[in-house]
């Protein structure tokens, strides 16, 4: 800038509006250094460790039966929990965004509640209800129903943890859109279902997809809540994150990181899709509700 032909007055105005070169350099270095240290190094470490002993061992680690069954279980849990939260999230968003009623803000706080509960507690509450010594434990045992240390427990804990995601994305978007499209469709003679399916859903499809994407990422990656309800029965009740933990604690670092790299891959795909959605449908997704 020093050899710039600009008159001195303009140069000084510029200085008052912009950070000086050294400030910029300092802040940029701090930001990049911090992100490198805390974000990029761990991510790189996952893949480096996964391939530390070569491609063969990596492949072996992710194709052994226990790993495969962990993948299957993770997909199964997500396949139940995500659609459940999709339906409930859409219902909640419809009620909250389209109607005025007393107690609405309390309802919103309740829906957001799982975000502020420790994942461990999210699992614990189900153990207290359905565990062997839980409130309903004896009854469940008498009727031979297994919830804790079995699939239903994993699903319940996952639903709890991911409960707010879809509603959280939809509510601000639906509120911003208002109700005039629906009113127009109804005055034109459309039935309620037709209005919902052909007007409301297409209007919010991108924020819905965004919510489902985040919900799914969390569902597949959840660790704390499922730790508590899983019982970690190898090959039976271990999802991928739990399988990672078991392998790591057995000092089987390569296998642990190999499975972890699959989850990291999922995270990267999620991030890429999420970023794509934010860039291309920014107006359809309320940027403020990113989390």
């Amino acid at each position, binding site marked *: 800038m020093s050899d710039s032909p600009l008159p001195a007055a303009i140069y000084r105005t510029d200085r*008052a*509006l912009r*950070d*000086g070169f050294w400030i910029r350099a300092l*802040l940029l270095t701090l*930001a*990049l250094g911090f*992100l490198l240290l*805390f*974000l990029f*190094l761990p*991510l790189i*470490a996952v893949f480096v*460790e996964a391939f530390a002993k070569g491609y063969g061992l990596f492949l072996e680690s992710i194709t052994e039966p226990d790993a495969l069954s962990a993948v299957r279980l993770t997909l199964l849990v997500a396949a139940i929990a995500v659609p459940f939260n999709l339906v*409930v999230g859409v*219902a*909640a968003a*419809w*009620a909250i965004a*389209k*109607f005025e*009623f*007393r107690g609405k803000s309390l*309802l919103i*706080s309740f829906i957001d*509640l*799982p975000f*502020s*509960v*420790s*994942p*461990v*507690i999210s699992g*614990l*509450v189900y153990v*207290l*209800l359905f*565990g062997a010594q*839980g409130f309903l434990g004896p009854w469940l045992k008498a009727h031979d129903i297994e919830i804790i240390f079995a699939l239903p427990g994993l699903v319940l804990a996952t*639903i*709890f943890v991911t*409960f707010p995601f879809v509603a959280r994305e939809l509510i601000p978007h639906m509120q911003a859109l208002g109700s005039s499209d*629906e*009113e127009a469709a109804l005055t034109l003679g459309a039935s309620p279902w037709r209005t919902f399916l052909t007007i409301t859903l297409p209007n919010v499809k991108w924020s819905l997809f965004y919510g489902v994407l985040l919900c799914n*990422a969390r569902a*597949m*990656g959840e*660790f*704390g809540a499922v*730790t*508590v309800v899983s019982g970690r029965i190898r090959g039976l009740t271990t999802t991928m994150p739990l399988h990672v933990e078991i392998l790591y604690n057995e000092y089987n*670092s390569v296998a642990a*990181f190999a499975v*972890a790299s699959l989850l990291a891959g999922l995270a990267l795909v999620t991030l*890429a899709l*999420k970023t794509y959605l934010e*860039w291309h449908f920014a107006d359809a997704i309320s*940027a*403020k509700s990113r*989390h």
Partner: protein
Amino acid sequence: MAGPSISFTSRRGDCVAVTASSWRQPSILPGFGLSLAITISALSLIVLIPLAALFLKAASAGPADIWAIITSARTQAALRLSFGAALFSAILNAIFGLIIAWVLVRYRFPGRRLLDAAVDLPFALPTAVAGIALASIYAPNGWIGALLAPYNIKVAYTPLGVMVALVFIGLPFVVRTVQPVLEEADADIEEAAALLGASRLRTIFRVILPGIVPALLTGFVLAFARAVGEYGSVIFIAGNVPMFSEIAPLLIVIRLEQFDYAGASVVATIMLIVSFALILAINGIQSWSRGRLGHV
């Protein structure tokens, strides 16, 4: 005037016609009952009833036992570590989160959009994956651990390691709450300040930063709340030595594995009450900010 006959009357609203159910405003849109029923049933079954069970279980322990659990040295140490490390990491995140948000919003440099996207990595990366990655980097023989070892600084398997993990998972909160406010802050405020003769520093500290404080506080509390309850990313790097590097959520898991449901419930309840207080704090900050600044 050759129009049709006009009749018009206009009278005072002397008839009191209050709608029967005044808890909701009538609307012609369909599906209120159904959608609210689904929402409330799911919310009750999945969230509210199970949480109530937790409080019930904790309360059933009896005052003496509850007091004993709370005051036990191990519980106290775990809570102190969880809250202390969370506080420290949230402060660090507030400082660096603000810098990162500033850099992302105000500076143009190659790779900025990529960096912006990467900030959300801690949201997307499963905590267990982050946990083992951080543990391997900061272990004495890890990439960074080995650099620090000669200076006798141990990160992994100490409270410092807990903080590292909590910084990682709390990072996006501050950036993502401050960023939109910075983006929306009109350049003309700064221009006005500059034209009024303010120096750059004065503009930043007197004009720009005060507008960001509520968002910064919100992000700080969010990061703190998340850090207090964090489990997955911490337990691998913490070493989990009782009374030294054992966090409260882990203590809950350990009590549970010992079938000490009451012990687990009491610790969990304390943490929940703190979480609720934090939610209230956030709501307080936001309504205060809305009242004063018109935005969050």
